[in-house]
C-alpha cells in the first residue's frame, strides 16, 4: 500500500478551499496552515503561462524529516504517510530544517505539526478533507499500489511532475501538468 495524492494544476483555480477545509478539520491553530496554494507566473506579457498548485507535506518515500528526527517521533505510518507522535517530539526543529518543502511548523503547544493526509479520515475509508471539499475536483487521493484507485488511474493518463525531485526525497504528491 502506498498512499499518494495527485493534483491537477490545469483544473485548480486557487480558491484556497483546501486550506480552509484543512484548518477546520484538523483544528489548525489560527495563523498557521498545513497546506497552501502557490501561483507561478512564467514568461513576459502577452506570452504568459500560469500554474496553480495546492501544496502540502509530500509524504516522501525517503523523508529527510524521519531520517533526522532524534527520537523517532517523525515516522512512517502504514501506507507511507509521514506523521509526528506528539508525546515523542521534543520540539528540536531538526525536521523543520530538514524539509525542502517547508511543510512543517512548531505547534503553539510545542510539538511539530504538519499535514497527515488526514490519516484519521483515511483510516475510516474517507478522503482527506482538502480532497473532499475541492470545488473543481482537481485532487485525487488513494493507493498507488492499487491500479484501480483514483490516483493510479489519473496518473496513467496524464503527464505529471513532483516538487524538487533533485532533493532526492521521492515525494508522493504528484502534480498533473
Amino acid at each position: 500500500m502506498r498512499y499518494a495524492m495527485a493534483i491537477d494544476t490545469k483544473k485548480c483555480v486557487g480558491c484556497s478551499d483546501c486550506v480552509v477545509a484543512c484548518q477546520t478539520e484538523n483544528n489548525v491553530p489560527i495563523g498557521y496552515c498545513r497546506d497552501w496554494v502557490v501561483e507561478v507566473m512564467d514568461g513576459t506579457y502577452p506570452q504568459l503561462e500560469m500554474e496553480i498548485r495546492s501544496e502540502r507535506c509530500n509524504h516522501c518515500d525517503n523523508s529527510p524529516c524521519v531520517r533526522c528526527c532524534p527520537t523517532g517521533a517523525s515516522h512512517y505510518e502504514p501506507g507511507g504517510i509521514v506523521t509526528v507522535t506528539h508525546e515523542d517530539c521534543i520540539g528540536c526543529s531538526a525536521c523543520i530544517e530538514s524539509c525542502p518543502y517547508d511543510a512543517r511548523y512548531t505547534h503553539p503547544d510545542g510539538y511539530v505539526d504538519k499535514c497527515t493526509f488526514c490519516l484519521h479520515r483515511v483510516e475510516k475509508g474517507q478522503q482527506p478533507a482538502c480532497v473532499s471539499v475541492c470545488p473543481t475536483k482537481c485532487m485525487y487521493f488513494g493507493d498507488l499500489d492499487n491500479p484501480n484507485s483514483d490516483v493510479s488511474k489519473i496518473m496513467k493518463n496524464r503527464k505529471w511532475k513532483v516538487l524538487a525531485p533533485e532533493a532526492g526525497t521521492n515525494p508522493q504528491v504528484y502534480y498533473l501538468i
Partner: protein
Amino acid sequence: MREELIISGRMNPKIDPILHAWGWEIPLYLFLGGLAAGILFFAALYTIRGKEDMYPAATKWAPFLVPVILIVGLGALFLDLHHKLYFWRLYTTIRFESPMSWGAWTLMIVTPISFIWCALNIKLLFPKWDWKYEWLKQLEQFFLKYKIALSWIMLASSSILGVYTGILFSAFNARPLWNTSILGPLFLASGLSAGAAVIIIMAKEHAERLLFSKIDLMIIGIELFLIIHMFMGFRASTAVQLEAAHLFLGGAYTAPFWVFVVIIGMIIPAILEFLEIKKYKIPVVIPASLVLFGSLMLRFLIAYGGQASRYLY
C-alpha cells in the same frame, strides 16, 4: 521571467517569509560545544604524550572551564526545545541516522568525563580539598590509575563532539549552504582553534603560550583552506548551491562573513600570532579573543545563512 507566490497567505511563525526555526540558541550551543571539544582534545592529547607538567594550562587549568561551558551550552540547547518536558525522549533511543541523536549521546559521554577530569585536578584549585568518603577516594585512585585510558576516551569523544557540531548542519540537504561535508572538519578546526585560544589566555608560561600560538596559527591555516574549498565546491555545484554560496559571495551575508569571521577572526589573529612567534611583544589576549569572536560568528552566520538558503522549485 518567473514569479512564484503563495496566494493563500501562508505565514507560519518562524517558517515564513524566511526560515528561522533556529535562533541564537543553536549557534551558541554549537560554539560552546566546539570550544569544549577543543579544550578537552588538547588536554587529552598532552596528557597522553606525558607533558602534563610542561603544559599545565592545557591539561589542568583550561579543562576546569569545560563543565561550565557545557552546562551553558546545554542550557541554550534546552531553551531551543519547544516541547521541553519531553527532552528525556532523546535518551530513550539511539538513531544513528540522526546527528542530533548521536550528538546528544556524545554529550552524555563527554559531560561526565569533563567533570571527572576536573575532579582529578581539584586539589589545584582547592589545596585543602578532601573527598571525605573512602569510596570517593578509591574512585579517584581508580581514575588516576587509568588516566591514560580516560584520556584516549576523551580524545575520541571530544573529536566526535567537535565534528558533530558541523555534521548537525551538513546532514540537512534541504539547506544547500549547510549540505557540504566540509562543515564537519571546518567546525572541528574552528573548535580546536577556539580551545587553543582559551589555553593561550590561561597559560602562564611563555613556552606554553608559544606552542599554542603555533598550533592556533596552523589550525587557522587549515580553516582558511577549508573555507576556500567549501566555496570552490559550491561554485562548481548545482543552481541551489550556487544561490546558497551567493549569500556569502555578494549577497546579504558577504560583509559580516568576510569581515568578522575571515579578517577579524582568522587573518588578523594569524598575523599577530605570527609576529609573536617572531618574538615581537604581542598581548596574547588580543589574538586569542579575536579567534573566539570569529569562531562564534562563524556558527551564527552559517546557522542564519543556511536557513536563508533553500531549494528553488
